């Protein structure tokens, strides 16, 4: 016969509270549902439970201490410990759970409309009773050139797991836009579907162009004479050089639109906006200054409003 005081690790003078606290501590440690499949834990748990049964209350402790604890109880215990887990009166909960049991295979059924569905991102249950854990979505970042973003491109990226992904970048894609690749995320467990891969686009800036929405903006320097007389000059667009007609009398900041040379494709395509900048010669030659002084006398104007 085992000594319940030894089993619970308390002294014979321990109070019922101390005994209860010692019991709870051991019960928590050895509970079979926390140690599934561990026979030793199960045995310990039973010992602890029996010990508590013997001395857990004031009355029982008195009985036990005076040797009055009935033999029947001890026999029951010994019988209980001897029996296999197959035919004992009550199995531990984990012993009833074999993956096809009602609760563990049915935890989707009306019982998971709470935080857990959030944890597991809509965890479902297979029609066949097996679990369906969808794979996790994965996020990637892809840096593309300014022109690739404006005109569209095809790229191959290699995912961390070695998988190669053919990425078709649609023309006119915006900074931060995400492309979704269904089924290329984390693997699923059971019969669930794999997660999706999301590729977030970041656009490298260009020294030549800027983007505002679908429009491409570029600054084009012109001379004083081109500004006054107008001209036809070659400018760069994302499709290559085009000729642009500058009307007479434009200033710095005048904007000219080249239709359908922006980002995007087809009817969705933006425009190319040219922002003009009149550039004067840095060290005007003496002759030019003299010539302009003469012209100024004849064609004086004030750009600040009062002529």
């Amino acid at each position, binding site marked *: 016969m085992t000594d319940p005081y030894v089993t619970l690790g308390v002294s014979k003078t321990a109070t019922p509270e101390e005994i209860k606290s010692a019991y709870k501590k051991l019960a928590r440690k050895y509970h079979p549902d926390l140690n599934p499949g561990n026979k030793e834990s199960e045995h310990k748990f039973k010992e602890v439970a029996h010990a508590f049964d013997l001395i857990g209350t004031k009355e029982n402790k008195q009985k036990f201490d005076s040797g009055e604890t009935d033999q029947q109880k001890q026999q029951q215990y010994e019988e209980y410990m001897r029996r296999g887990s197959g035919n004992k009166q009550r199995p531990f909960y984990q012993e009833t759970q074999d993956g096809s*049991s009602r609760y563990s295979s049915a*935890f989707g059924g009306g019982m998971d409309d709470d935080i857990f569905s959030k944890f597991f991102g809509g965890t479902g249950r297979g029609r066949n009773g*097996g679990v369906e854990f969808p794979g996790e979505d994965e996020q990637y970042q892809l840096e593309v050139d300014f022109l690739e973003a404006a005109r569209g491109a095809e790229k191959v990226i290699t995912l961390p797991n070695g998988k190669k992904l053919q990425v078709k970048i649609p023309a006119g894609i915006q900074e931060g836009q995400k492309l979704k690749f269904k089924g290329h995320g984390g693997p699923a467990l059971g019969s669930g579907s794999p997660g999706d891969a999301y590729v977030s686009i970041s656009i490298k800036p260009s020294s030549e162009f800027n983007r505002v929405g679908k429009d491409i903006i570029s600054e084009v320097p012109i001379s004083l004479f081109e500004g006054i007389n107008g001209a036809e000059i070659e400018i760069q667009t994302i499709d290559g050089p085009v000729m642009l007609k500058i009307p007479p009398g434009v200033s710095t900041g005048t904007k000219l639109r080249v239709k359908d040379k922006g980002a995007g494709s087809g009817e969705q395509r933006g425009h190319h906006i040219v922002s003009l900048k009149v550039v004067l010669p840095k060290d005007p030659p003496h002759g030019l200054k003299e010539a302009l002084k003469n012209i100024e006398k004849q064609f004086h104007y004030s750009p600040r409003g009062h002529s």
Partner: protein
Amino acid sequence: MKKLIQIHIEEACEECKLSIEVIRKFILEEWIKPSDPEELLFDQEDLARIHLILELQDDFGVNDEAVPIILQLLDQLHSLRGTVSRLNR
């Protein structure tokens, strides 16, 4: 492991030394779902689960808010263990 025997709620109360109100509460909280919800019949799994809830409350000091969380996690754990052992087969 699943026993096919089912017992009525009154017998279940006796077996678990509980009042019928406590078991009703367990059902209302959806902590247990009787194997036959209309006739209120309980199988071995239900009874083991009731015992588990009682042990969680009495021995572990788990409060009513935490009981469903622990049950859910245990259910998911058992379900995963089932899946893993099926996959290993």
